[in-house]
């Protein structure tokens, strides 16, 4: 059994998005009790939230943007930049706790204390750009983790696999000209789904051309398409890139029962995707995987999907 970390903190429930919002605290509660029920919690090494140092957040986000976000929260307003982004007084601090938790988890993996880790954090991050919040995201947790790992461990090749059903426009924009981070995303085709980016012709810019890969999937497609993408595209590309660590933007909203998308992936499909990511990490990255929760809104399916995700991480 692998030494798998699990980041979770009750404080992540304090980010209040109001009634009727899909990105609700219930998501994390459902994940936590699902792990408890399945008897998985005792197999995991528990990590708690901690405050991120500002210098790491500033390594990705503009100072003025951070200030804007902070003052909106403290003013008591309940949305930021767009009605989608519902927040509360505590959101700024909770977002910093999410980043801090992910950075601490990254440190434990990079230092070899853990083999891999799953970070059950809120708010999510992959839509957040350097100077713009979007799609329920404020600080780009995974992008900040990648910058942290680059700078503290001098890692030259970081792989980010984003299987959230929505394109991670934030992560892509942050690393599009950086060949030391390979951003790979499978998502519902942008002509049918939020946020309208992630078209196949978006391949990076400048020195980063060829280090961004977008694989849009049409509505109604599911396991067969994902299996084929993982086998014929993801695996050969990652074999070529040979990432020294794998970061995963783990969104569970491509599930057939998740109303946020038109994609029909089953739990078995998610298993296939994650197993191939683990294969790449075992082959090239010494097994190092830092997986961070993004979307996934079906409270009925989330526990099953996360339990499954964690069982794959635990497997030798």
């Amino acid at each position, binding site marked *: 059994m692998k030494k798998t970390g699990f980041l979770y903190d009750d404080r992540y429930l304090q980010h209040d998005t109001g009634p009727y919002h899909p990105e609700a605290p219930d998501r994390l509660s459902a994940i936590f009790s699902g792990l408890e029920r399945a008897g998985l919690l005792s197999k995991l090494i528990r990590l708690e939230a901690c405050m991120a140092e500002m210098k790491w957040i500033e390594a990705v986000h503009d100072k003025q943007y951070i200030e804007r976000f902070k003052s909106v929260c403290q003013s008591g307003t309940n949305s930021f930049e767009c*009605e989608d982004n519902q927040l509360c007084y505590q959101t700024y601090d909770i977002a910093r706790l999410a980043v801090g938790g992910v950075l601490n988890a990254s440190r434990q993996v990079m230092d070899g204390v853990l083999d891999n880790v799953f970070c059950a954090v809120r708010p999510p991050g992959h839509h957040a750009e350097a100077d713009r919040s979007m799609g*329920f995201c404020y600080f780009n947790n995974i992008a900040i983790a990648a910058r942290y790992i680059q700078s503290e461990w001098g890692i030259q090749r970081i792989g980010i696999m984003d299987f959230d059903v929505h394109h991670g*426009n934030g992560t892509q924009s942050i690393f599009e000209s950086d060949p030391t981070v390979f951003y790979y995303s499978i998502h519902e085709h942008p002509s049918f789904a*939020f*946020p309208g980016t992630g078209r196949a012709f978006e391949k990076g810019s400048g020195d980063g051309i060829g280090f961004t890969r977008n694989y849009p999937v049409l*509505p*109604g497609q599911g396991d067969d398409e994902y299996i084929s993408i993982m086998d014929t595209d993801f695996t050969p590309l990652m074999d070529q890139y040979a990432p020294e660590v794998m970061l995963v933007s783990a969104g569970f909203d491509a599930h057939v029962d998740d109303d946020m998308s038109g994609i029909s992936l089953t739990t078995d499909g998610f298993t296939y995707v994650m197993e191939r990511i683990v294969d790449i990490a075992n082959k090239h990255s010494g097994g190092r995987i830092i997986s961070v929760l993004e979307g996934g809104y079906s409270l009925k399916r989330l526990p099953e999907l996360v339990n499954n995700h964690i069982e794959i991480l635990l497997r030798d």
Partner: protein
Amino acid sequence: MFVSRSMTQKVVTISKDADIIEAKELMEQHQIRHLPVIEPDGLLIGMITDRDLRSALPATFFKTENPAEKMPVVPSIKVKEIMTQNLVTLSPMDTIQDALLLIQKTLVGALPVVDNKGNLKGIVSVRDLLRAFINVLGIGQPGTLLGILVEEKIGQLKKIVDIITEEKISFGSVLVARYWEEGKRAVFPYLLTNNVVTVKKKLRDNGYTLLDPMEWYLDQLPKTEPKNAATS
């Protein structure tokens, strides 16, 4: 919607007495394919396109890496010898729709815009129209497109707009397209949100049919053959 607002105003032009090699260099330098030919006072007298150049210059001229080496073998040709003179033009107060239909009809890639004295004011190319329609579609902003099937009768759109507005969702655009079933229309609201779960449910609860995204279309004719279609 007037072409004066969407046209390129700083037009790269050429004089009728210039050599066509100069025209080719100007096109390459500015990455354009149309050069209006004007008199010193701004009067539009013709147009020269990259296709005109390709017809006038030997094929080898385009393949060589250093065109200067080939210069001596290319006879000097003046712009006025190969330019198109009877031009289809737009006026600044023509609309984008005029430009679209005219480009479709004339099969040209760009139309010059002239004032009532015939002086060049701008140029509208397919690229300018694309930019305008990317804007109209709203796809430069993050959002989600829905496809809703409605009866073709008054008041349908209002109910849809009301439901979406109740959810405090902003519109990026709304398109209404013909649908292949008689008496039906397809409405495509582009919503500036990631959060469409509730609004989709409300639309269904109000009796609307959400179209299967794989059946969406913006540019096809009805699937069924018209009843009086000729058979062959």
